[in-house]
């Protein structure tokens, strides 16, 4: 019974980090599907979300207002990045695009370091930190925030991509950009939208995880890479695949940290990634299309 309780506890906490990975991976997939770019700056939006919220709270804004301001800050950064560094490039090779996004991530990280220093900052929990007991395990109110906001975001984006004209247009771009252009879809606008959605979701992920972890200018790197793992496990899909990929990664990582070794927690995520790339490079859910060049 005790072992079961322990496993249950690990799965619960893995669920919440997994939800965060899913949101970040979702941001990766949205940009990848509309542009073919792997945006290595994705993690920096996550970092900006957390740090900017703390910044606005310290300026005595209430939490909801700070959250909105922080999302706006990250989204604006995403828009500026797209306008200045992505849109002007016409025939850049994928390799150069990867390096440009890496350059942008260095730039954003540097900006955050100048603005907020190298210290770690703490964002207070949204609604206290009295643990809640479920069976033998405990969770924090913040975990509930993470679950519900993740579910909300996923549901909203499903609605957006399946119901709205803009969402459908973005999906059309993901299938075939040229054909989408031919039927009158403004592909450039869709690319800009994808950066807006992706940076907004990324920053939100950073905001809801911030009370559980510390925030500093360099937290984005690891979170971004893990989100990328989630997206790849899910086969770079805009939908359920990435969510399940994120949750799977979070749970396996948490179980591995608990039962194998906590200091190799980060390595476990990447070992899972390598195994999946070696044996199911198309992601674990995709059936057709064995190779994406």
């Amino acid at each position, binding site marked *: 019974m005790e072992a079961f309780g322990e496993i249950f506890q690990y799965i619960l906490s893995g669920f919440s980090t997994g939800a965060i990975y899913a949101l970040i991976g979702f941001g990766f997939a949205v940009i990848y599907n509309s542009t073919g770019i792997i945006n290595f700056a994705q993690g920096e939006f996550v970092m900006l979300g957390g740090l900017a919220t703390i910044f606005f709270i310290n300026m005595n804004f209430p939490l909801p207002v700070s959250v909105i301001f922080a999302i706006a800050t990250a989204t604006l950064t995403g828009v500026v990045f797209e306008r200045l560094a992505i849109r002007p490039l016409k025939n850049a090779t994928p390799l150069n695009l990867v*390096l440009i996004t890496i*350059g942008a991530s260095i730039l954003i*990280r540097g900006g955050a370091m100048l603005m907020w220093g190298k210290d770690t900052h703490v964002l207070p929990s949204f609604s206290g930190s009295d643990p809640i007991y479920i069976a033998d395990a405990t969770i924090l109110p913040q975990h509930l925030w993470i679950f519900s906001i993740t579910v909300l975001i996923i549901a909203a984006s499903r609605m957006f991509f399946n119901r709205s004209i803009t969402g459908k247009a973005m999906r059309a771009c993901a299938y075939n950009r040229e054909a989408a252009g031919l039927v009158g879809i403004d592909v450039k606008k869709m690319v800009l939208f994808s950066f807006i959605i992706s940076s907004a979701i990324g920053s939100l992920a950073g905001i809801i995880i911030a009370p559980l972890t510390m925030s500093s200018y360099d937290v984005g*790197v690891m979170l971004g890479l893990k989100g990328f793992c989630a997206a790849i496990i899910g086969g770079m899909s805009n939908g359920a695949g990435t969510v399940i990929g994120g949750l799977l990664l979070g749970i396996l990582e948490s179980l591995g940290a608990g039962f194998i070794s906590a200091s*190799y927690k980060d390595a476990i995520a990447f070992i899972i990634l390598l195994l999946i790339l070696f044996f199911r490079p198309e992601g674990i859910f995709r059936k057709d299309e064995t*190779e994406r060049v």
Partner: protein
Amino acid sequence: MTEAKRDILGFLLFAAAVLIAPFFFADSYILNVLVFVGINTLLAVALNLLLGFAGQISLGHAAFFGLGAYISGVMTAAHSFDPWLAMLIAAVSTGVAAFIIGFPILKLKGHYLAMATLGFGIIVYIVFNETVDLTGGPSGLPGIPNLSLGEFSFDNDIKNFYLIWAFTLLAMRISLNLYRSRIGRALRAIHDSEVAARVAGVNVKNLKVQIFTMSAVISALAGSLYAHTMTFISPASFGFNFSVELVTMVIIGGLGSVYGSFMGAAILTLLPEFLRIFHDYDIIVYGLLLILIIMFMPGGLAGGFRTALERLSRSRKQGAD
């Protein structure tokens, strides 16, 4: 003058310039920086074999550099092996590791390859940090001896400069020869189109793994040289950031260009020294420069240089007409 002769002459001029460089920069600080230019050139030349010749990205090459450094370091500092023997063992075992992971990794393409090599690099980096008993963990591994030949010890910058540049020049010469050889042409064919290369009878899978292994072995040698020069190593030098820096060197220099790899390595090694004048802003200027160079010089310096030469000769011809 035939192309082969021009190639040899160019290389001899470059080698001569390197060999006399220390006479102009007697300042020990600059000499020390030039030692690092040598190590980074060796690494960039190694990565260029994979990235520039065969067109396969690796975002985890710092791991091979680190493996070389740590195997050499641990064997000599903790178990007092002969440094040259340790260096050989480091190169061979890193090569074997690269050969084994090469087969599954190089099946992947594009972003998936980038992500797999990145993952490998991060795993190795975490192992360096966590195996504290062996590597000393995050606080590093001190007490690595200098290399020596009999009584002659490579214990200062000028000696290390010649030692490291001997390796670097050799690697550059091998790269230049490889570029013009049958294998070099096969690699470039893989770069342009794997399917076409396979149709033309190139054993794509084996060749990719072989060049990956060779690149890893040279990187491991650079790691051993680094460890014995610095006499102290810590995991921070072998992380994801350094892998990115290596890729940047090759791309800024120009994909496939051996001298370009040198230019990229030289610029990225010297840049932080110049950026010191920006104090805390250096990281911002670095990121900005990276973006600007790739936006405005997508073919790297070697590419930009070539276009400039072509334009010059064309305008001269037009003038003659």
